[in-house]
């Protein structure tokens, strides 16, 4: 019987997670050298470019230990961003252990801590691994000390390796088989499998990634997805060896895939329990929740003739991204489009970029909003995620906005700056504690609207990358919320409206006007940008008219350079949307809320 070990690798950014995964894959000879490429598990272009993982990937690695015993090592690669934290938690719930990677010259960093907590939460065996020991700047002793003191882990058990050179990779593999417990679970009990990911395949439909906890599943079985109550006939099961490899059955402890004629990934739920239809309903696996979008934005095709193509692209996109929600929407300024819901800002950005690249859809995206609730004079409650539908102010009895509990971990010295940032973003009820000397964990209750735009970026900047951030939705709280409209040459651009706290309205409005002045190129005429609440103007800025655009000198040595500039301008003409006579660049609609206020 081949023993199984299920594990994940977790690390602060740039500590070498993908490189170690690559090395483990190479060691198992799963792919021949010609097919191998770096960041093997990050299959999307955007993942490779940004060096991040967005989608979970699993790979099943055969390994014969030094003692001669055969193992199957299931590596579950997880995303590293707070937007996908639920997905990550389900992937970790499918593991028994985790490799906690620490850069030998950087030592323990913010994300290392956050990852440690996540692993402890799931009761995982933690194997500290010091990576990049080949670097001249490596300080192994210091890294060991940090692991001992800051993480509270036994540094004697730390493995040293260089994923780059391959040194110590065998030790890592040995530690996995020695230290990580075999999966528990009863193969003869009724089937229970945890769904931690799903991918869409044009021919096979949704391919479920799962961890079988109890029992077994194979072709011909009828499975039931517990939360949805739907049943499907299993066509195929197997494991991921970079390519899919068919198996007769998947049994307790194994990680693999199920194909069961499920049309799209939206017909599955991450965190759901898969059972057999014939079994009396066994208890569902813990931790399932319905993931709801928290950030909303409208999208419009740049060219309004492309509406049908955009609808088509969204439908296709949705096949592989169940967390995206959308419905038809329209704007007086921008025409017909769609209102979309996202898990967070990274999710939104990834969506926009993939829509452009993979589906060739150039879109205008409006300023992201959260979902507000309004209690009206007639007693009804309305939910509003689009400022366009802000109710008549005279009718509003009570306005409510979503609050989150923010958990921020930082080295002590950044405490002042972080407090300032959180207070500026209307944070309340803060408290903090010291998990270890020199480190602080800070908790704040904050309006979600204040963190969605650029809070994470700001935090990273003021803490020089050492701050980690996570949040949970708390509740809805009453606030004084008003709508600010933007007028460009007296014409209201509904897609630029925002809902904002009354006290912050003027500052925010001024910043938006100034930002638009930067974003909108000068025209042949003067452009007035105004912000208004109701009929009252609360801020304005002006873009002066373009008077001339001509180079003074053009002789022999200037011509080529100038022509190249013109070619670039002609080619890279910004994607613009016309509002009245004014051309507004595509980026302006989202950029307008990226401010430098803090």
């Amino acid at each position, binding site marked *: 019987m081949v023993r199984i070990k299920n594990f994940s690798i977790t690390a602060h950014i740039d500590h070498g997670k993908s490189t170690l995964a690559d090395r483990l894959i190479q060691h198992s000879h799963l792919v021949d050298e010609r097919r191998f490429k770096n960041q093997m598990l990050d299959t999307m272009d955007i993942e490779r470019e940004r060096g991040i993982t967005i989608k979970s990937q699993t790979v099943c690695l055969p390994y014969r230990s030094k003692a001669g015993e055969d193992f199957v090592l299931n590596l579950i690669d997880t995303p590293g961003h707070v937007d996908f934290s639920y997905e990550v938690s389900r992937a970790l719930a499918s593991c028994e252990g985790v490799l906690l990677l620490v850069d030998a010259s950087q030592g323990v960093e913010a994300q290392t801590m956050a990852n440690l907590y996540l692993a402890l939460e799931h009761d995982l065996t933690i194997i500290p691994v010091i990576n990049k020991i080949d670097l001249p700047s490596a300080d192994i002793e210091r890294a060991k000390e940090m692991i001992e003191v800051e993480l509270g882990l036994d540094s004697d058990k730390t493995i040293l390796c260089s994923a780059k050179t391959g040194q110590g990779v065998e030790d890592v593999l040995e530690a996995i088989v020695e230290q990580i417990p075999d999966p528990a679970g009863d193969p003869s009990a009724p089937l229970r499998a945890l769904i931690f990911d799903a991918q869409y395949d044009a021919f096979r439909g949704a391919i479920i990634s799962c961890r079988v906890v109890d029992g077994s599943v194979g072709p011909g079985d009828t499975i039931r997805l517990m939360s949805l109550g739907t049943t499907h006939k299993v066509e195929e099961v197997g494991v991921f060896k970079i390519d899919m490899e068919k198996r007769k059955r998947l049994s307790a402890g194994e990680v693999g895939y199920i194909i069961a004629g499920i049309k799209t990934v939206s017909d599955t739920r991450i965190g759901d329990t898969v059972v057999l239809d014939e079994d009396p309903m066994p208890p569902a696996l813990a931790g399932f929740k319905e993931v709801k979008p928290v950030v909303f934005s409208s999208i419009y095709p740049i060219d309004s003739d492309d509406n049908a193509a955009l609808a088509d692209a969204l439908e296709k996109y949705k096949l592989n991204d169940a967390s995206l929600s959308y419905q038809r929407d329209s704007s007086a300024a921008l025409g017909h489009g769609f209102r979309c819901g996202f898990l967070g800002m990274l999710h939104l950005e990834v969506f926009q970029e993939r829509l452009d690249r993979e589906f060739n859809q150039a879109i205008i995206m409006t300023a992201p909003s959260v979902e507000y609730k309004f209690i009206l004079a007639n007693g009804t409650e309305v939910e509003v995620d689009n400022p366009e539908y802000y109710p008549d102010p005279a009718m509003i009895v009570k306005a409510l906005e979503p609050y989150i509990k923010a958990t921020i971990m930082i080295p002590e010295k950044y405490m002042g700056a972080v407090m300032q940032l959180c207070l500026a973003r209307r944070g309340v009820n803060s408290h903090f504690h010291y998990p270890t000397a020199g480190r602080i964990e800070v908790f704040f209750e904050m309006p979600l609207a204040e963190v969605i735009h650029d809070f994470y970026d700001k935090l990273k900047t003021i803490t020089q990358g050492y701050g980690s951030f996570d949040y949970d939705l708390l509740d809805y709280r009453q606030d004084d919320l008003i709508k600010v409209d933007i007028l460009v040459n007296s014409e209201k651009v509904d897609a630029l409206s925002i809902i904002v706290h009354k006290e912050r309205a003027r500052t925010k409005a001024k910043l938006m006007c100034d930002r638009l002045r930067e974003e909108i*190129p000068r*025209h*042949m005429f003067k452009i007035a940008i105004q912000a208004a609440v109701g009929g009252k103007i609360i801020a304005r800025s002006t873009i*002066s008219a*373009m*008077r*001339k*655009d*001509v*180079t*003074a*000198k*053009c*002789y*022999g*040595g200037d*011509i*080529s350079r*100038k*022509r190249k500039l*013109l*070619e670039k*301008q*002609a080619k890279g*003409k910004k994607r*613009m949307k016309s509002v009245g*006579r*004014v*051309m507004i660049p595509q980026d302006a609609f989202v950029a307008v809320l990226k401010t430098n206020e803090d």
Partner: protein
Amino acid sequence: MKIDGSAGLYIHIPFCKTKCPYCDFYSITCHDSLTGYPDLLIGEMEMYRERFSSFDTIYLGGGTPSLIGGEVLTRILEKVRSSFHIPERTEITVEVNPDDVGPTLLDAWRRAGVNRISLGIQSFDDRHLEFLGRRHDGSSSVAAIGMVSDTGFENLGIDLIFGFHGQTMDDWRDALEKAAGLRPSHISCYQMTIEKGTPMGRMLKEGSITSPGEDIQHDMFVLASEFLISRGYLHYEVSNFALGEKNISRHNSRYWNHTPYLGLGPSAHSFDGRSRWWNHRDLDLYSSMILDGELPVEGREDLSEDQLRLERLYFGFRTLRGNDFGDIQSGKNGGELLEKLIAGALVTVENGRAIPTIRGMLFADRLPVMVVSGTLSLDQ
């Protein structure tokens, strides 16, 4: 490619006594290599004897060509004459710094065949000249113009700069009045362009100087055009005015008309009608390559039809020569574009060509982009 017929010859003299704080042309202030330089030019010239046969415009620019004495200039021009066919009415221009001008030098040049002088006056105001880092003052500006005319040069061009830190509208009007009053046959009015990497570029970045702003620069441009036209000058290129068509710079027009020219010296550019190539911007490298018998070419490009069209359009919107209808109408929205340009008072139609108005010239950097991308508004 062998050039049939006459081309233009540009000779770069990369030496200056001092470097002006706004200039980004290639020149050095160390003159150790000045004496050996003419031989290098002659060496480079030799290498082009197969490809060029005749030049009917010759232009010595810089740098400061007036640092080269009469004898040396004579030698260079004699070599040109013995290597290529130089027709009788060839325009031969030398750029001159006002404080280098003297009767002896001018006379020597005239005898060498120079028939057009381009004087770097820049301003008549002592304060401005000091700010611009020039070696001369206001009175020597005037004196220099007189001296050039007295020596018998009928074709005299002067350069003026406008739109720099500290210059007012009134200052500019005075400069134009003074210039037009002296009746040079050619006036160039250059708007100050501050390039990154120059001393003024750094001053602008630090904030120790400012730009007067687009509105004033626009008004100054329009003033120059309207004023000089009222004094009988032809505004024939964005920055150039001539007292009648016969005084148009024939050499510079080669650049704008896409006709062939050969550039000698470091950083000089050449064009044969299809390709452009340029020399290394380093005197030492230039020199060692010539001595090795190699062309000192740093790079070249072969222009596609689209690129040629873009350049033609660009020049067309900068000069009174204007654009061929075909160039405007051959792309997307072609027919409509021409109508828009006319309706927007950006061009007028004369003899089947689209001639830029002043307003058109003011947007000469935008119009070609608009035409090749087929957009119908300057705002896009």
